[in-house]
């Protein structure tokens, strides 16, 4: 029984790790701030959800479970807020998306998009 829980937990953790890593690659590889924020969002939502769920299975019914839940709520609430704050600050200061698909469909992949 314990091993079944361990296996589910392992699967959740590994999936969480995968999500996080994919997001990390995205943040490094994508061309401009807004697309990078897009990639970062997966590491802030799916990643913690899966990882903390995996840990919750390990924790069982205990104080640790409650703490995990609080951490999840913290992250779930603050990550979008931080993303909003960041995107807003960037946009207001005149930082424009670099990836603009025009008529010909060509994209501009320059990272530095100060308008």
């Amino acid at each position, binding site marked *: 029984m314990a091993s079944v829980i361990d296996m589910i937990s392992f699967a959740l953790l590994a999936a969480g790790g995968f999500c996080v890593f994919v997001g990390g690659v995205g943040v490094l590889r994508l061309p401009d701030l807004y697309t990078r924020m897009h990639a970062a969002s997966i590491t802030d939502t799916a990643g913690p959800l899966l990882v903390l769920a995996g840990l919750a299975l390990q924790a069982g019914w205990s104080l640790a479970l409650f703490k995990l839940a609080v951490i999840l709520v*913290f992250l779930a*609430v*603050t990550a*979008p*807020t931080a993303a*909003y*704050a960041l995107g*807003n600050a960037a946009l207001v200061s005149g930082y424009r998306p670099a990836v603009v698909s025009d008529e010909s469909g060509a994209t501009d992949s320059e990272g530095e998009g100060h308008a």
Partner: protein
Amino acid sequence: MTLIFGVFLLILLVIVALAIVRSEDLFAAVMLSGIFSLLMAVNFFLLDAADVALTEAAVGAGVATVLFLGALALTGKEEARHTVSPGGRWLALGVSFATASLLFYASLENPHIGDGSAPVHQHVAPWYLANTLPLIDIPNVVTAVLGSFRGFDTLGEVFVVFTAGIGVMSILGVRHSLVELSGAELDARQRSLRHHLIPRIVGRGMVPLIMLFALYVQFHGEYSPGGGFQAGAIAAAAIILYSLLEGDDRGRELLPEWLLRLMVAGGALLYGGVGLACVLLGGNFLDYSVLATVPSAGQHLGLLLIELGVGITVTGVLISVFHAFARRASR
């Protein structure tokens, strides 16, 4: 296996440190030093220093970053082009090289990391581990050593914080009339993040939660990582969050200056007062055992009170320092 993770993190740490020194953008350097603190804290955690990791995170990544940003807002964020004087570079390289080679030379005869037979684990420390439960009766040995066995150090630590607080107030308390912002600008500035609806609402929900957590860290410090200092830093962070969201003026309405001064002085006095009370009750200075009929109960009471004193002073000082910088900005 933990060691391998540690090595990875340490290598990242060195990379970050190099990047901080090389970066010409001071803002980037401050951001990176936030990362530096986080990495440092994770390393501490892997090395079994949970209390230190908590402190480093709250102080290094939180408070220090806020302070550096506050200062950068006042001093400008660019470093000048030629940041290194030629003479200074050679002197620095020389001194650095000498120091490094000395330390490498020494390190080869250091006890191995994790070696349980090293002198540090043979003398003094085992006594603390063996006697914390019988003498003080709390599970967190770090808190016991901090508050009682080496309580005099911690008294000093509170006064270090206190000194920094009155220092910043004294240095930045001077009136100056460099930049007087016009009414509209001042207003926009003071409104702070008030017109950002989402952070504001979320943040307002967060402030009481963080305060609650600070109280937990404060009063649960005898049983888990934490204590007055960490709690003070977290509580100050909550108030600073409030000030960021609602504007510095509202933050100061919440905790007016006289109250802050009272907190700064009162916490330190509470700590010292407990020490003097021990003297009056016939013990040595800071000997909490005399505070109650049962020595371990006295130790409990003493630890509770001094941790409270630490928490109050640290909260007061950190908020005052933040206000001191923020008020400069709004002039």
